[in-house]
């Protein structure tokens, strides 16, 4: 679906965020970019989204560049419009594409139901918990039925229980939506639980050190599975090697 070839990005002031980074994303993939803070994970995500341009290398999309709505983006904070209801926040991407409210509402309500927010359509962000706000943010990213869902440490600010619940729900949503997910995190446990492919990145300048494939069949019991513990150990060793 997308090929990232030898991409490099240097910021004003000479900070080299990414160097010679290559990655291939396939349809319905779930890729986790894992690495310490400042290793260029978010930069790579912004380059994939087209919010930033590489200084070196290029990104090639199969079947042409993405149209607005082909990419969904979930930020670390929910970043909702504080004056709008959950429904209106989710409606926003469709509204920006010129879809009428009447035509959009069935899809908006369907995606809100899918993320477990049935009954909260008219709630304002300040009336929702942190986890619920993040669910609205995920619903907003899914409402355009994107080919690619980019998630930049979306659960980092949430408590452990909410994070586990959202991780499980995200996998369910991903299976139903069938889109490709690129998920940024610096949590080894989160990476092991979510990913089909774990991409380990080195500290600045960020590069891809290695990839680890996961064959776990993830579900609520996975965290107690010895195979999960083994995967966490494998990622931990890989990360230690990448950091050296």
């Amino acid at each position, binding site marked *: 679906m997308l090929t990232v070839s030898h991409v490099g990005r240097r910021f004003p002031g000479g900070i080299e965020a990414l160097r010679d980074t290559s990655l291939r994303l396939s349809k319905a993939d779930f890729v986790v970019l894992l690495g310490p803070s400042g290793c260029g994970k978010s930069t790579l995500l912004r380059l994939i*989204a087209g*919010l930033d341009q590489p200084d070196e290398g290029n990104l090639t999309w199969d079947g042409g560049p993405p149209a*607005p709505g082909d990419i969904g983006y979930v*930020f670390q*904070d929910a970043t909702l*419009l504080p*004056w709008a209801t959950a429904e209106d926040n989710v409606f926003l991407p469709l509204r*920006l594409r010129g879809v009428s409210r009447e035509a959009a509402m069935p899809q908006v309500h369907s995606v809100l139901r899918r993320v477990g927010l049935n009954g909260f359509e008219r709630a304002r962000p300040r009336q929702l918990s942190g986890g619920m706000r993040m669910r609205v943010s995920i619903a907003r990213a899914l409402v355009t039925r994107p080919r690619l869902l980019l998630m930049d440490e979306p659960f980092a600010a949430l408590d452990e229980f909410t994070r586990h619940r959202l991780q499980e729900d995200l996998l369910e949503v991903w299976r139903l939506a069938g889109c490709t997910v690129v998920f940024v995190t610096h949590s080894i446990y989160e990476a092991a639980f979510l990913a089909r492919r774990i991409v380990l990145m080195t500290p600045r300048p960020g590069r891809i050190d290695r990839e680890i494939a996961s064959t776990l069949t993830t579900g609520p019991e996975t965290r107690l599975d010895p195979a999960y513990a083994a995967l966490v150990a494998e990622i931990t060793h890989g990360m230690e090697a990448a950091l050296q």
Partner: protein
Amino acid sequence: MNATSRVRLGMKFAPALFGLLALALWEAAVRIGDVPVYQLPGPIAIIGAFVADPVGLLQALASTLLVTFAALFAAAVLSLAMALAMSASQLAQAAIQPWAVALQVTPLPAIAPLIIIWVGQPFVALVVCATIVAFFPLFANTATGLASAPPELNDLFRLYGASRWRTLALLRLPAALPYFLAGLRISGGLALVGAVVAELVAGSGGFASGLAYRILEASFRLEMPRMFAALVLLALAGILLNFGLGALGQSILRRRT
């Protein structure tokens, strides 16, 4: 009634009780000290001055408030237009900002005579003067508000291919609304101050209409109770304006969120 309710009730009436006590002390001090009325009139004499000519004083207040509201409206429109221009173009920002600051730091009494001479029409001249005083807080607040949306939301609008106008209408203007309303409340008081200062300057040049002119006239005639009555009306108008604009802002924001 429990202790919390009593404290809350006390807090509610404390300003009025404190004011009444101060007025009583003032009246007592004037009477006991036998202070001449042309030096410091007591509250009863001031009320007497108002009762002697309520229509004249209230008409003057209406004239001052008309200038105030016209200036506030003009300042709101101008500040919004200039803040929008600044947020749309860095060139406009570089061009506008120093002049806006220059306008803010120039004392109105220094330029009011010039404005009154140049503009000619007295009402318009007063509105121009008051607008200059009211402009800056509204302008600065609106400009800050237009830039206040989180960068992630700006990125989101870019990601979905939103035009500049759609981003302005759906993100930047709604984000700026609380800032604009806060600026409106500050500028309301300043517009009244600007109107009074301009009226004082214009009044000394022979233009008679507003409450400031009544103050000037009363001071020339040593009619101190009338002068104080006009001052009290001005203070009350300022308080009501501040509360009114605050309530308007809260009501708009409450309806929105």
